[in-house]
């Protein structure tokens, strides 16, 4: 039986008079890799923000493994197993890569409140940070400030940050945005190589990346779901072609 990792009912977010998300219902079984696609302004990022707690939805509900999290603060959702990356790179520029990861590692446990011991004294944290950097292709960079590494490397760091909160469901908001084709391939390989027990919900503009990684695809347009199906079904659908690629 497939437990639902995520269940969203009739979620809406209204800004002024504009319904950015307009009654979206979505169910993602545990372990699935779901990709959200849709043209600019379809409401993908707003939907993400409502699910992860950055924004409060106007109505509707969000359930994580059966538990209603609609009103929970973002840090609580992280503790319950939501991890996320941001569309606009959101790392700590003045901190080193090692310190960036150390924060991600202690963020979900009580060690973040410790005052009397230097972070460096936690060997376990240091080792986990080094290991994690190596896994995302940033080996040997632990002592560099994040502001001095390239944009592509910051995207890799962004992914490593999300992975170190021990997510059960991982939300990736355009992980490949602004990357060169080579970097894009590297990130998508990294995502493909994630353990299968992490449920994935991902926004992606690059159709090759999106359809290559997805088990299933949800198409959003003007704040509503217009189609849900396998990558092949989506690729073949005329309506998707119409809204997504424009009129041919």
């Amino acid at each position, binding site marked *: 039986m497939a437990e639902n990792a995520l269940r969203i009912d009739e979620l809406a977010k209204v800004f002024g008079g504009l319904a950015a998300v307009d009654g979206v219902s979505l169910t993602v079984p545990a372990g699935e890799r779901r990709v959200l696609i849709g043209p600019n302004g379809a409401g993908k990022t707003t939907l993400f923000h409502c699910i992860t707690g950055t924004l409060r939805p106007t109505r509707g509900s969000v359930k994580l493994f059966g538990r209603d999290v609609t009103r929970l603060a973002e840090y609580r959702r992280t503790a319950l197993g939501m991890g996320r990356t941001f569309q606009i790179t959101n790392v700590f520029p003045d901190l080193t890569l090692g310190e960036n990861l150390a924060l*991600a590692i202690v963020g979900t446990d009580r060690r973040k*409140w410790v005052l009397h011991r230097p972070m460096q004294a936690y060997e376990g944290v240091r080792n986990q940070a080094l290991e994690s950097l190596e896994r995302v292709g940033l080996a040997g960079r632990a002592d560099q400030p994040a502001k001095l590494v390239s944009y592509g490397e910051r995207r890799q760091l962004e992914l490593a940050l999300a992975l170190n909160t021990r997510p059960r469901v991982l939300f990736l908001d355009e992980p490949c945005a602004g990357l060169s084709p080579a970097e894009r391939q590297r990130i998508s390989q990294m995502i493909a190589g994630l353990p299968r027990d992490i449920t994935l919900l991902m926004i992606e503009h690059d159709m090759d990346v999106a359809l290559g990684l997805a088990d299933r695809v949800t198409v959003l347009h003007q704040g509503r779901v217009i189609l849900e199906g396998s990558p092949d079904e989506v690729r073949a659908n005329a309506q998707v072609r119409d809204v997504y690629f424009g009129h041919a």
Partner: protein
Amino acid sequence: MEKARIALLLVALAAALALPFTAGPFWTGLVTQMYIFGLLALSVDLLLGHAGLFSLTHASFFAVSAYTVAILHVRYDVPTALAAPAGILAGTLLALVFGLAVRTRGVYFILITIAFGYVVWGVAHRWSSFTGGDNGVTNVPFPAIGAAAITSHTQYYYLVLAAIIVCGLGYRVFMRSPFGLGLRGIKASESRMQSLGFRTSAHLYAAFVLSGALASFAGVLYVYYNKFVNPVAASFPVSVEAALMAIVGGTGTIIGPFLGAAVVLGLRNWVSSFFEMHASIMGAVFIATVLWAPQGLVGIAGRIRARWRKARRG
């Protein structure tokens, strides 16, 4: 730590220890003040330099603590061993309330802390039956715990020196702790910290209370030095100056706030001896710092060192 820096600190320590013997009581007194206000500036910088919160209410904790100590000593004859901790406690309790300011950010945080500061100043100023009004509370004795009693300003100088060294060392541990790193994370990106599982408002609240406790400790040191406390200690300019000391010296460091205190107090003492409008000179120094040396004296020192190294290599 590098050898050069350790050597520099040792020289500074030796100079600090030798000061009462080589300079007169005037200088000893002035430097004691620099230590005390440096500590107050350090408490402000805990929020400013690490968490990115600009508080303008730290004179409140400083003054409430000083008043508590003074009133307990003078009116109730309470010994130091109780009065001093009571002072820190009173200031910290106030910080527990004023910490609500962390629900706001940016300019709103600044405005609300200014308002808090005026409340405390107003109480000190107008509730004369309790606070002594403009005259404040006078005749505070030197601290004494059992047989160990301070009897001179020179002895008190050494006590304050020991206190700031202990605070500086503790602060250093705090800066490097997971909690301290968390504050720097919040300063850089609060949204990212939340998504990493940090309850950032609670983190900032805890930092605010800690910072208030440190300011309260500075208030205790102040009242035993000054021998009296009046509403000036709670006034807005004290909060502003503490923040500016941190900025002039260099935020986000330990030595910076103390350097800033030395510059501000030293300059004021010197300039006021021959120029009536000394406050305007202070203003000019602050403006110049913000415009040309936002990293303060510590930043300037760093730049000079970087240039040196480059010159030696090139």
